[in-house]
């Protein structure tokens, strides 16, 4: 069994987590203080997941902050940035509106700000 030491990124506490890995999956997780930490560690040893946040240029030039509505694989972030930067939404946009439907395997890109004009 391989032991991996991780820092949880789910919240500012940054718990130091130890995960025991066998055949590519976590067989135990310790050091986490909440269930999200356990899930984080389990994903982290298989394929790290992150919520991607960025901003896109709207028609007219205004920038709109956006994020993925679920975490995506970390290794996909840079290639998905190219797709995202090719999109130029038209205002008005409200917080939570979908900017790109199904950006990656059912994960949408959504607006995180209301911009009316």
């Amino acid at each position, binding site marked *: 069994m391989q032991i991996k030491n991780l820092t949880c*990124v789910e919240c*500012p506490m940054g718990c130091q987590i130890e995960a025991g890995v066998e055949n590519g999956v976590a067989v135990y997780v310790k050091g986490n203080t909440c269930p999200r930490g356990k899930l984080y560690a389990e994903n982290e040893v298989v394929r790290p997941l992150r919520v991607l*946040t*960025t901003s896109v240029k709207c028609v007219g030039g205004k920038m709109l*902050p956006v*994020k993925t509505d679920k975490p995506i694989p970390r290794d996909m972030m840079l290639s998905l940035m190219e797709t995202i930067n090719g999109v130029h939404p038209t205002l008005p946009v409200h917080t939570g509106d979908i900017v790109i439907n199904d950006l990656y395997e059912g994960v949408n890109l959504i607006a*995180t700000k209301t911009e009316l004009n």
Partner: protein
Amino acid sequence: MKHDIVIIGGGPAGLAAAVAAFDGGVKDVVILERGEELGGILNQCIHNGFGLTRFKESLSGPEYAERFIDKVRERGIKYYLETTVISLDKNKTVKAVNPELGFFTIEAKSIILAMGCRERSRGALNVAGTRPAGIYSAGTAQKYVNVKGYMPGKEVVILGSGDIGLIMARRMTLEGAKVHAVCEIMPYSSGLKRNIVQCLDDFGIPLYLNHTITKIEGTDRVTGVTISEVDAQKRPITGTERHFSCDTVLFSVGLIPENELTKSCGITLSPKTRGAVVSQTRETMERGIFACGNVLQVHDLVDFVSEEAEIAGRYSAQYVLNGEGVYDFLDTQAGDNISYVLPQKINKGVDGNVKLFFRVKNTFKNCTIRIKSGNEVILERKKKIAVPGEMETLILTADKVQNLSSPVTVELEV
């Protein structure tokens, strides 16, 4: 014009203070905001992680701001944008200017200072070298990329590993820049551990601890920097120089509460926090003038800014409704290994618990934090780890506060 409560600053502190003051029974509240929209610096903080304490979910900066902006709008709280406050006096007269009204004066019954902070600049550090284009504070670069939509450069070196520097290392990388190095003069990062992982480690960006930039090169545009390791006295060590070619240098070297107005009004400031001296109600030493958020002390999390602003808003409303309360002050002091304690005064005339905020001076493991009044220990807590980058808090319960007779000291023992 006249208003009951004037709030200077429409960022997270001003917004939360306004809502709390309104809900505390004062309906005539007005926010004066320098920028073009409410929300302050949150508007450019498009990354997530805000609101975990308060809303139990991870929000981006604009989302967090919008929750409070909505509350301000629902209550019909008045606000002026693009409004710069020019002066403030102890009679609570505010002089301001904006494009709509020109120069105007507001007579207030109570004032809440919520101006936030600004970034330390290259000038504050005396970094040697030329003065070419391509040198930005991390927050300026953040505004360019996230709000204005253009990239300040392609090849980047960042000085300072505070959270804004770390966040910008990731942000620039996502937008196609190459971040060569993040240098930190201290032996530890002042940023959150999670940001070291998700902003640097995720992208293979090296962090050089005990390093600083010793030279910036370039005539018209930055062409490179030299970094050097520093000794225990923070002096560069000869022979440790390392050169990076780059076109951009970002400075993320700390925040300074923006207290020019506070100073010009003659309000007592603390040399340690560089913010006003306040009691637990966040009232400054001038009756009826309150301060909250990063103008008072630089916070790690916006959730705590909102919490502090609500205290200020609530007591500002009480001041307007009931007038001056009872003032019976005891000092708080930073003892061994503690850099500051806020509030600096405990007013025994105010009921309720008192939450003490403080920072430790260094990284300590397996330590004990103690609150003493005179020689008597009134609270003790063991900590596995305490770091300067994370604000600590301890609560003095109301009964303990009432029994205090000597100044309160917070100390850390290893």
